[in-house]
């Protein structure tokens, strides 16, 4: 039985990041006797968010307020959290594994002289389960200290159902956030990149397995079979310059949920899956029978896409 765990709530534009609630479910699964949620920011947002957190989870919330907590910064978060938990000996600090979470969690752990275990996606007999090699291998990791910092992989736990009954107390405390080496300058929005994903019934998506940009014509020909289609891509394909970033699907690209998603030569990295796993039908074509994409696909095809796609087009044209 673990004694006390903290959950660090993350937020943007005054809204709690949904991954925070997933971290709450993770913390519940740890079976801790005592749980506290910490939320950092400025007034009045912190108070609203603290209430929402308390009402939805039934867990006690401490809101820490400082003028320089208006924008996220690793420096301010690390220093504030350290003072907030001072004197307690938590078993775990649970932090969503988002761009903010992994930014400050390892440094926080190091300052606290405890290990940081990142991108945790499961629990087993006191060990944390996390993926290696793009999900090919799972590692069971155990801290050898009584405390640790854990980042919780988005999508691995479901947000808890709203709790009934009266919400526990919310405490708002003034904080002293250190901000000596950082000047946060705010957010720049991604350029608009609608390439018809919303209207597409079928998204044919391409990964590094395409081998060379010359083979992209295969993807275009396959997409052309469908009345309403669009072409998606993994970040790897965009990084190579084979397709523009407007095509990128995933956690740092666009999130899509078409009627059918055809993944061609895509390994199924978690950051890609988080942008397409709600598609109604997922079809995957990959030469590797152990590719992680097959774990989310309902139709799995182990084939070389460069030879397979021409056969599909050929068979279809013969029929119609």
């Amino acid at each position: 039985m673990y004694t006390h765990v903290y959950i660090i709530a993350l937020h943007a534009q005054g809204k709690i990041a949904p991954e925070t609630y997933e971290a709450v479910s993770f913390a519940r699964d740890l079976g801790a006797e005592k749980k506290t949620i910490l939320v950092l920011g400025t007034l009045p947002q912190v108070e609203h968010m603290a209430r929402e957190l308390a009402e939805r989870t039934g867990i006690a919330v401490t809101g820490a307020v400082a003028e320089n907590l208006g924008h996220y910064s690793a420096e301010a978060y690390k220093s504030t959290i350290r003072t907030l938990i001072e004197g307690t000996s938590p078993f775990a600090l649970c932090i969503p594994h988002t761009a903010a979470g992994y930014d400050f969690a390892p440094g926080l752990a190091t300052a606290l002289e405890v290990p940081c275990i990142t991108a945790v996606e499961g629990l087993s007999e006191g060990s944390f389960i996390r993926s290696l090699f793009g999900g090919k291998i799972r590692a069971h990791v155990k801290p050898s200290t009584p405390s640790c910092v854990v980042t919780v992989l988005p999508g691995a736990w479901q947000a808890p159902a709203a709790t009934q009954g009266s919400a526990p107390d919310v405490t708002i405390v003034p904080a002293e956030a250190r901000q000596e080496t950082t000047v946060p300058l705010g957010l720049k929005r991604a350029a608009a990149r609608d390439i018809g994903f919303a209207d597409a019934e079928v998204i044919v998506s391409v990964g590094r397995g395409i081998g060379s940009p010359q083979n992209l014509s295969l993807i275009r020909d396959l997409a052309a079979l469908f009345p309403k289609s669009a072409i998606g891509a993994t970040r790897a394909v965009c990084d190579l310059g084979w397709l523009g970033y407007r095509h990128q699907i995933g956690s740092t690209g666009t999130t899509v949920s078409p009627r059918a998603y055809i993944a061609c030569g895509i390994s199924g990295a978690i950051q890609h899956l988080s942008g397409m796993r709600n598609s109604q039908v997922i079809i995957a074509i990959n030469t590797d029978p152990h590719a992680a994409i097959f774990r989310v696909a309902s139709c799995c095809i182990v084939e070389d896409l460069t030879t397979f796609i021409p056969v599909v087009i050929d068979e279809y044209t013969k029929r119609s």
Partner: protein
Amino acid sequence: MKILVCVKQVPDSAETLSINDAPPRIIYGDASVFRMNRYDEFALEEALLTRERFPDCTVDAVSVGPQRVRSTIRKALEMGADQGIHILVESGEYVSPLARASLIAEYARSRSYDLVLAGIMAEDDMEFQVGQVLAELMGLPCATSVMLQEMDRMRGTVYVEREIEGGDRECLTIALPAVLTIQSGMNTPRYPSLSNVLRARRQDLVTIDPPQRWPGRETQLITALSYPDAGSPGNFLEGSTVDKARGLIRILHEHSLL
């Protein structure tokens, strides 16, 4: 001005790996091919681009690992790094990110680097940690997932844009010296030039023996390794290539997509 780039060697593919149960260890098969972690290639490229902007700049590449990682350090020299540093760790055991970062910090602390770069994560362990831990150990500020950096040497700061969910960017300036972890797509990593390949062949690497006891070595342990649940909920199409093509067309018809 001095830049240090942390480069990690990773296996090119997970196909050639297997698992040893006790003690839990990854076994690299004979057919394993090793290469530089892709995110570190972007980090190294960013260092080289910075050197082009500031001619007094030098770029060192450091890697922690067994003898075989020397080929990756050499690759860094071939791409254009001025010096390669090998922190020799022969152990086949898991080396935690804290231990790895401690070894790099030990080396870097007294050498007054202005900027330390690393990839956002390693493709093998996927831990997203070494840069941030290194920064904390060295008492430096750190920004992760960086897609743009501009140094202002007069002010002693660096402006960075870090990519967050949905491709939005968080903008900030941090004081130098600093640690940045680099996201893929920030630049286009170069191919080695012939002159650098020839130079890399002649040049010695600096080899550092780690201390007897490493800090942070045993703070986290891998208790087991396993393959993910074999059972895919999906249906694998069987038969010849033509059978599978027909199967796919049938499925698309059943869902009224064709």
